């Protein structure tokens, strides 16, 4: 029962705790890294290197007044922040963190992640709709269009990996990469499309158009405060961790690495590198306009991902004879 195998209560508890802990720490990591890249200090007052900033933020967010506006639709207003946390945390269930670490080895792993990603869209839509606020409504309209569109390319860009490994099971995909090469080489276009779609799915900067504060206040979570806002906030960081873990598993060999370090360490290193890359993206790239985002997706990414799938399929068929 208390062994480190796939699906034991100890493993599940450790994964849940680590994932949420990392997501909360990212609040501090992001601000420090942004400060570093912009040649300023960032939060460095609370504790060593400002490490306890997270604790201070958590105390603040838990003790703030949890206000539901009287004009809001209470049922969906309360439901919305819970959906994003549940949907993202459920996705972690199928991710293999190491040879014997994971929650479940499902044969529909990738499809399950895609299903949870599409359910996550309800969080921002319901949040904006129930707030009864024009900025929130505009934000959730943008979010709905953006997430539904980028889900399409996200799914298609993964099909090349599925075709190469012959399975939807994420653990089988990692093991297939250990025998051959990491899929980032044969599926480079798929990797780039998945990266872009991943940023759009978790609506991180530069694709944070649903919550662009210069245009529409804070978008869909304008009316939220206290821990309900905190769940949107942490949900976004959880989405960041999820996308980084998925890229690691699908394109960079998961826990695969030289044997002098434990496999989980390699996984954490790769995922951490991608998290830092996403934070760098935020510091480096300005936000596109809403219509630019949509036309870029449908007119450029969709044909590109279809061509990528077609060429991959043709090469697989011709080499198998």
């Amino acid at each position, binding site marked *: 029962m208390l062994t480190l195998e796939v699906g034991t209560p100890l493993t599940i508890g450790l994964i849940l705790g680590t994932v949420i802990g990392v997501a909360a720490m990212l609040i501090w990591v992001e601000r420090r890294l942004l400060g570093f890249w912009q040649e300023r200090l960032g939060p460095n007052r609370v504790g060593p290197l400002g490490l306890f900033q997270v604790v201070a933020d958590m105390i603040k967010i838990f003790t703030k007044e949890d206000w539901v506006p009287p004009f809001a639709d209470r049922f969906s207003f309360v439901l919305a922040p819970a959906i994003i946390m549940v949907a993202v945390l459920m996705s972690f269930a199928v991710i293999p963190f190491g040879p014997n670490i994971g929650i479940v080895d499902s044969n529909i792993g990738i499809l399950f992640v895609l299903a949870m990603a599409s359910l996550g869209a309800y969080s921002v*839509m319901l949040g904006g709709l129930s707030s009864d606020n024009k900025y929130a409504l505009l934000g959730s309209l943008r979010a709905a269009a953006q997430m539904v569109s980028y889900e399409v390319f996200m799914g298609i860009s993964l099909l090349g990996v599925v075709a190469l490994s012959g399975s939807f099971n994420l653990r089988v995909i990692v093991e297939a990469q250990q025998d051959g090469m990491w899929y980032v080489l044969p599926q480079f276009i798929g990797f780039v499309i998945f990266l872009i779609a991943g940023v759009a799915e978790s609506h991180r900067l530069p694709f944070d158009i649903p919550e662009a504060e210069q245009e529409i206040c804070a978008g869909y979570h304008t009316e939220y405060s206290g821990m309900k806002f905190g769940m949107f906030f942490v949900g976004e960081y959880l989405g960041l961790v999820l996308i980084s873990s998925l890229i690691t598993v699908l394109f960079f060999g998961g826990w695969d690495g030289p044997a002098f370090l434990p496999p989980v360490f390699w996984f954490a290193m790769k995922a951490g590198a991608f998290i830092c890359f996403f934070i760098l993206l935020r510091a480096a790239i300005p936000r596109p306009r809403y219509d630019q985002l949509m036309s870029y997706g449908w007119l450029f990414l969709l044909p590109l991902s279809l061509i990528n799938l077609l060429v991959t399929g043709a090469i697989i068929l011709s080499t198998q004879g």
Partner: protein
Amino acid sequence: MTLLFYLAASVAVISTVCVILQSNIVHALIYLILSLLAVAVVFYVLGAPFAAVLEAIVYAGAIMVLFLFVIMMLNLGQHSRDQERAWLQPKMWLAPAIMAAILLFQFVNVMLGTTEPLSGSAVGVLEVSALLFGPYVLAVELASILLLAGLVAAYHLAKK
């Protein structure tokens, strides 16, 4: 597994009833999503994981998002809620109740006749794909051409 089946099935039935009884359209939609997810669990328990996850992606994840998207645009308020409530008068229930009773009768009749156990064999992704791209490839191609035609037509109407 049997317990999970009955749990998911009763969630599906109860939430579907809630869809009909709700006068707030957004709440009705949330119940409909819950019902679809419960049906997905039923599929999974019965040994069709691929159908289950497609139900979640296509119905709960894509089609219902479009429904919600349209509702956002419509500016429905107290007015539509009152109208819905007016439609839920007792005399409105008569004809649907008779039809539902006929269906229930047939359903019970069929269920009493069958003696097969609850769960058959599991059908994974590979088996479904082999069937879709084997004997049924013509039907798949025809359906995709139909979808393409619908897409082009919708694009044309939107351009007008």
